[in-house]
Every structure is written in structure tokens, then in C-alpha cells.
């Protein structure tokens, strides 16, 4: 007889705490919601300042207080030839470094995802070190190398350094994609008489391409934004971040805000396109 009696309190008892719990979590949820938006506001505050102060009608060099709205800086983006050169350097270095890092990183990613081989652990360790070691240590050690062997630092040493810190990120991204591949598709291609070469380009490569593209985008983003390693390896060459850093003391002109806004817009567009297309692919 105890059977039908005992479940009754068990089902009724949680009802009250459940209601109380829901009330309390709703409160907690609202608090969390507010907190999250406060943090987001804090995150976006300097970005908003950057965008808005590109339209500031300043008379002196100091671009700190609001002086009125103007579009004139958009027509005078080329006022600082060194800034144009620096921006151009940033873009070409990022393109070159991305190209090299993507090729080398993709090959590494395929090897690490596909094969088991001696020295794999060591390779992973070196890649982990490249990803996690402080930029300052990488920059100073590279400069120590260049000084010791008598290499003049400049454009090409920056490219070398940028390939160095991007290649592991590409490899890790591609490896993740390779590990998730369905091997039977390639087997099917081979069974249908495709050579190793044809199988790779017509079957394997298209399947890992999303990983390669994400890796390349990451490499480009890391390269164009890099400051610390670039400062140590650039010699007299300037890049966009280096020029801004140099201009801080004398006052950063509104042109920098506008260029920063444009780069931001391009970055956001690429990120949105990448998320949308990768969502469609999977």
C-alpha cells in the first residue's frame, strides 16, 4: 500500500521551490543581462570614439575634445605620405606573410591531421610554443638573431617574423578540419581510378578549403594588427600600427581614425561573410 502514497509528496514538494527558483533566476538573469550589456558598452566605447573623432573639425594637432562635425578629413586622407606608405606596407606585408604562412601551415596541418609519425609530438610542442610564447620574447630573440648574423632589419625581416607567428595558427586550423574528414570519400575516389594527385586536388583539397580559408583570414588579421614583433624586426620600415604609435606623442590626426574605421568595416564584413558561408557549408 505504500506504493501509491509515497510518490504524492515527492511530486508536490518540488513545486514550491521550483517557483521560487524560477523567480530568483529571472532576477539573476536580468542582472546578468544588464552586466553583459555594460561590458559590451565598455568594449565598444573606444571604438565609437575612434569612429566619431574621424569627423572632428579640429584646428590644432590635438584631437581630444569635440570641435564640430566635418567631412573634410575624408578628402585629405593622403595628407601624410609616411602614413600612406606605412598603411601600404602593412597591407603588402600581410598579403605576403599570409600567402607563405597559408601554404606552409596547410602542409603541416595535413601532415599532423592525417599521419602518425615520429617527431609529431615535437612538432606539436614547437607549434604550441610559437602560439603561446610572449610576443616580446619572440621579437627580442629575432632581433638578437638578426644583429648577431649581421642581417639589416627591414621589410623582409618583418615578413619572416609575421610568417613565423601565423604559420602555427594556420596549421592548427587546417589540422582540425583534416581530423574531421571522412576518409571513405577519398577511398571512393581512388576506387574510381583517380590518381593521388587528382584525389588531392578534386576531393581532399575542396573538403579542407574552409579550414584553409579560416587559417588564411586569421593569419592576415594577426599580421596587419601586429605591433610588438614588428617593432623589433622592422628597422626603419614603418607599418600602420607603428606609425600610430609614433604619432601618439605629437597627436594622432583624424585621418588615422578614418583609416582605422575603414579597416574595422572591412574586418567586420569579412567576419560576417565568413560566419554566414561557414554556417551554410556545415
Amino acid at each position, binding site marked *: 500500500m505504500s506504493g501509491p502514497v509515497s510518490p504524492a509528496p515527492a511530486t508536490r514538494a518540488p513545486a514550491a521551490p521550483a517557483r521560487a527558483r524560477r523567480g530568483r533566476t529571472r532576477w539573476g538573469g536580468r542582472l546578468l543581462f544588464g552586466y553583459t550589456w555594460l561590458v559590451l558598452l565598455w568594449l565598444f566605447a573606444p*571604438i565609437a570614439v575612434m569612429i566619431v573623432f574621424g569627423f572632428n573639425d579640429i584646428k590644432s594637432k590635438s584631437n581630444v575634445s569635440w570641435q564640430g562635425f566635418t567631412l573634410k578629413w575624408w578628402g585629405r586622407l593622403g595628407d601624410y605620405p609616411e602614413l600612406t606608405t606605412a598603411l601600404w606596407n602593412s597591407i603588402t606585408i600581410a598579403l605576403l606573410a599570409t600567402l607563405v604562412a597559408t601554404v606552409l*601551415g596547410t602542409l603541416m596541418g595535413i601532415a599532423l591531421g592525417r599521419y602518425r609519425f615520429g617527431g609529431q609530438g615535437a612538432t606539436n610542442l614547437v*607549434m*604550441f610554443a610559437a602560439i603561446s610564447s610572449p610576443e616580446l620574447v*619572440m621579437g627580442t630573440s629575432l632581433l638578437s638573431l638578426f644583429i648577431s648574423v649581421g642581417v639589416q632589419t627591414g621589410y623582409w625581416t618583418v615578413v*619572416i617574423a609575421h*610568417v613565423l607567428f601565423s604559420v602555427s595558427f594556420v596549421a592548427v586550423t587546417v589540422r582540425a578540419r583534416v581530423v574531421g574528414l571522412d576518409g571513405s570519400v577519398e577511398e571512393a575516389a581512388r576506387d574510381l581510378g583517380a590518381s593521388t594527385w587528382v584525389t588531392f586536388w578534386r576531393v581532399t583539397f575542396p573538403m579542407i578549403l574552409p579550414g584553409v580559408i579560416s587559417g588564411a583570414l586569421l593569419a592576415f588579421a594577426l599580421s596587419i594588427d601586429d605591433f610588438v614583433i614588428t617593432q623589433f624586426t622592422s628597422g626603419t620600415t614603418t607599418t600602420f*600600427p607603428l606609425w600610430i604609435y609614433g604619432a601618439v606623442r605629437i597627436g594622432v590626426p583624424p585621418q588615422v581614425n578614418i583609416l582605422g574605421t575603414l579597416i574595422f568595416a572591412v*574586418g567586420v564584413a569579412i567576419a560576417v561573410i565568413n560566419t554566414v558561408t561557414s554556417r551554410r557549408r556545415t
Partner: protein
Amino acid sequence: MRRKLAPYLLVLPGGLWLVLFLVVPLVFMASVSTQEGDVVYGFAQTFHFANYTDALARYQTQFLRSVGYGLVGTLAAIALAYPVAYWIAFKGGARKSTYLLLVLLPFFVSFVLRTVSWKFLLADDGILLQPLKDAGLLPEDFHVLATSAAVICGLVYNYLPFMVLPIYVALERVDPRVVEAAYDLYAGPRESFTKIVLPLSLPGVFAGVLMTFVPMTSDYVNAAILGGPSNTMIGNIIQTEYLTNNNYPVGAALSFTLMAVMLAGIFVYARALGTENVLEAAAR
């Protein structure tokens, strides 16, 4: 035979690049750190280990300050990132990825430019402080720039995503059924959080600490742009020794010490928490 060689051929170009420009330079920096001389007459290897003791004796204040800023900054980053990651993971619903993108969006602006924007915002006569001063709410000589608070604020701001992402990933993996089970077993919201959700998300926090503490401690951009002479970090000293004073041995000795301290810190940290825990979390 060809199949056996294939992985080596694939790894070789990238691996060579990593060895040549990551491992070999460390050997050269170790060598430079015990040299003596100057730029004009050249440097000679004299195994002058006193470079280390001299440099540390001279710059121990900046060293300790950097570690202090790194610790405070990391704790502040946890306090800011955890609730945000929690909210996105559990209350974000279908818009999770949108919120995550919103958190990451500011970081599409160049690192230096972001920090410069903070300088705009916090300037003594800037848009934040001047109105308050005009209203008489703040004394005329009040300033935020050139204080420890400004530098730490910049550090936390610039490295926050490295804390949000791993915590979010860890929280995302918490099975909601486990939390439900806790409620079914009469756990209150507080108990189910402290006994279920928090322990399950700790690997994410550990990974986040690893990913923010090291770059924060070795940063010099925030101190250079937002700080003053009394906020100099070890990174600023190393940068000045290398790029302004051309005193490479002292710079190399400091940089090597910094790396050793960071490595030792990571090692102790990993041992204390269990190596697999940290490495696994970091590998994500």
C-alpha cells in the same frame, strides 16, 4: 616508402621556418645576454653572467610591477568575462554566436589604435573628464592617465577576449541535463552553480588565465600609451634597452629572465592544477 616519407616532407618547410626563426633565435638571445661591449665597438662573448644580476638589481621594481599588473589584470578579466560568458552560454539562446561576435567585434580595430582611443577617452581634458570637471564634480587637476588604474584598465580591455572565449567554450559544454539533475535532487540555484557549473567551467578559467596573464605581464604598449613614468613595466625597459639604448645584452638578459619566469610560472601552475587539465584546456 613514399608514404612513410610523406608526413616529413609536408612538415619540413613549416617546421624549418619554426626552428630557424623561433628556436635558433632563442639560442642567439642566450648568447647575446652574456656578451659585453657597445654598438660602436661591437659586442664580444665574455660569458658575463653579471648582466643578469645587474639587470635584475636595477629593474626589479619594474619586474615586480609587471607581475602585479598581470595578476590584478587577470583577476579583473575573470570578474568581467565570467558573467558575460555565462550569460551568452546559458541565456544567449539562438543568438549565441551573434553575442559572441559582438564581444569580439571591437578587436577588429588595431591593438594600438584601440589603446590610443582609450587615451582620447581618458584624457585630462577629454570627453569623459572635462564635462565632470566643468560641472565641479571633479577637481581640475584630477587625472586618470598616467596611473596604474589606466594601465590595468587598458590591459584588461585588450586581452579580455582571451578570457571570454575559453570560459564560454567550457560553459557551452556543460550538459544542461546535469544542471537539471541537480535541481531534481533539490539543489538550489546557488548550490547547482557552485557544485556543478563552476567546477565544470574551471578548465576554461585556467586556460583563460594562461592566455591573459603571460601577454599582460609582458605588455609594454598600454604602459607606454596610458601610463606615466611611475607605471613603467619590464616590457618598456626591454624595448628601450633594445631599440633606444642599443644595449642588447641587458635587454636580452631581461627578456630571457622574463621568459624563464613565465615558463616556471606556467609549469608550477600546470602542476598545481594537473597538467592534462591545463594543456587540454589550452589546446582547445
